[in-house]
């Protein structure tokens, strides 16, 4: 496979939140292997946040207490991290282990848990998520006792988190029994702790997925992750976040084998997906719809715009993806489901904010009206981070530039800088929001 700017852009968008022009050129030169290693393993020493910390009208973020700041805090991480794949996987796990309606401190703690385990052992991540307070409260695992076992977590664990199919209602009931014992403690200020109490656990014999014994919570997690349906289920789900077309049966088998061979480590199948030719198909015609978070964070990151305003929170909500608030434990619907006339209006509206206040804003005096259409396009394209757009898009925008001064008397053209600036704003807005930019 050759390795060009276009390959780097595709990889950076799918594995993260896009590439700046400088990144695209630099990593094209360093070659495929080096780029993949850097993307998948991250920088030596771990992730850092590069650039100025978020500042909203002079105030620092307070993600715990101020509504909406939690979202801005996370978007900021996506914009400034030196390890984008880690943030992308955190978002993916947030969708996969979807939790909602829980107090912000608990959701932020879950977010940290997901980030810590994002690219390590799936079994370890599953254990951490099972014990996570926000998850336990959401799916009623906390205070599911031997007298009254609650089946919610057991059901979603198998249906949504690990298997998809291949289990029975009896398995759900038995798993629910085996998962009993977690008990919550509250003060008047809120949750103090959730702890496992053996005296609340049903220690009888259970039969689950063919195994019989005095099974406890960790036994349940061991059984679901060693079940033969788990590996193909999980790798297929992971694939769907990175590639628009479903994997062939052969690809699923290969990825599942990689996953199993590694001891159920997340990184190897992810690396395999990010190296797969399918990810690089049709470089000039991207086919995966950007989810709202990737669209917004990616637009900020690739234009060099930092989080200095709070519009991202309500805009993401209007687009249908408010972080920390998935619509159900099944997470969001991805792909074409993101698209509707309402959500597209919101995505279009983001352009206004970036072009008025973000890094791509047009500086006074920077765009004479005498630029040729091609020059005007080029300048706008550079200002918004050189997004990959088709020839047809370019032609349409140059046509717009050509006719943007039609109603002006030609004698005033030289002094019509204000109109030239308006054209720049328009071109930048369209480049950021056009259909080409909704796909990656």
């Amino acid at each position: 496979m050759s390795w060009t700017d276009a390959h780097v852009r595709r990889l950076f968008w799918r594995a993260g939140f896009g590439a700046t022009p400088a990144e695209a050129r630099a990593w094209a030169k360093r070659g495929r292997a080096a780029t993949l290693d850097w993307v998948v393993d991250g920088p030596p020493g771990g992730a850092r946040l590069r650039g100025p910390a978020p500042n909203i009208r002079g105030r620092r973020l307070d993600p715990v207490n101020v509504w909406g700041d939690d979202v801005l805090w996370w978007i900021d991480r996506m914009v400034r991290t030196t390890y984008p794949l880690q943030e992308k996987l955190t978002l993916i796990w947030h969708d996969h282990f979807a939790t909602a309606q829980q107090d912000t401190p608990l959701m932020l703690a879950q977010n940290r848990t997901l980030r810590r385990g994002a690219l390590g052992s799936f079994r370890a991540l599953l254990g951490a998520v099972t014990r996570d307070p926000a998850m336990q409260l959401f799916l009623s695992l906390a205070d599911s006792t031997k007298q009254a076992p609650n089946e919610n977590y057991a059901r979603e664990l198998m249906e949504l988190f690990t298997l998809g199919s291949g289990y029975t209602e009896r398995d759900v009931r038995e798993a629910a029994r085996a998962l009993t014992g977690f008990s919550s403690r509250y003060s008047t200020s809120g949750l103090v702790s959730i702890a496992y109490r053996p005296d609340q656990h049903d220690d009888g014999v259970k039969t689950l997925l063919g195994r019989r014994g005095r099974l406890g919570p960790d036994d349940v997690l061991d059984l679901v992750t060693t079940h033969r349906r788990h590996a193909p289920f999980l790798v297929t789900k992971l694939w769907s976040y990175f590639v628009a077309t479903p994997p062939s049966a052969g690809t699923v088998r290969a990825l599942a084998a990689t996953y199993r061979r590694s001891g159920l480590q997340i990184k190897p199948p992810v690396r395999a997906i990010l190296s797969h030719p399918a990810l690089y198909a049709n470089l000039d015609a991207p086919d995966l719809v950007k989810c709202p978070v990737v669209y917004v964070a990616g637009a900020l990151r690739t234009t060099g715009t930092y989080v200095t305003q709070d519009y991202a929170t309500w805009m993401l909500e209007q687009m249908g993806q408010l972080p920390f608030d998935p619509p159900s434990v099944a997470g969001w619907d991805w792909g074409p489901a993101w698209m509707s006339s309402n959500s597209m209006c919101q995505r279009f509206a983001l352009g206004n904010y970036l072009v008025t206040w973000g890094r791509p804003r047009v500086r006074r005096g920077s765009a004479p009206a005498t630029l040729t259409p091609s020059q005007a396009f080029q300048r706008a394209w550079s200002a918004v981070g050189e997004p990959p757009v088709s020839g047809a898009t370019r032609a349409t925008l140059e046509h717009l530039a050509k006719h943007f001064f039609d109603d002006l008397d030609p004698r005033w053209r030289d002094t019509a800088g204000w109109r030239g600036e308006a054209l720049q704003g328009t071109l930048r807005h369209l480049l950021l929001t056009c259909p080409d930019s909704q796909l990656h």
Partner: protein
Amino acid sequence: MVAWRMGSLLAGTVLATVLLAAVPAAPTADARRRTPATTVGVGAREYRFAEYRASVPRGVVRFDLTNYGEDGHDLVVETRGGRVLGRTGKVGSGRRAVLQLHLAPGTYRLVCDLANHAALGMRTTLRVTR
């Protein structure tokens, strides 16, 4: 700038801004203007409050209340002696409200005074430090 717009779960915000001197020896008006607000996030559900910080510095305190429950709730801030300083008013399921107060150092009570909610557990305290 632009007002926040809330979506399906968190639809509608009630803004109740009540600027009161809580107890005697309040700071001068100038000092009050210069003090930035400290926000305390509060989650309400049946039948408890979760406050996202146990203490705040004196000055303008903003309560960001989210009702995660299915019933309506309100948030009432009182002195330790029971004098009501401010309230959000009844906030419906899934909705939010903001209450802003000027508080001097001391301990304050936060309760939901609907029906028997306080007796069922919707009561907590907040410490305001120097």
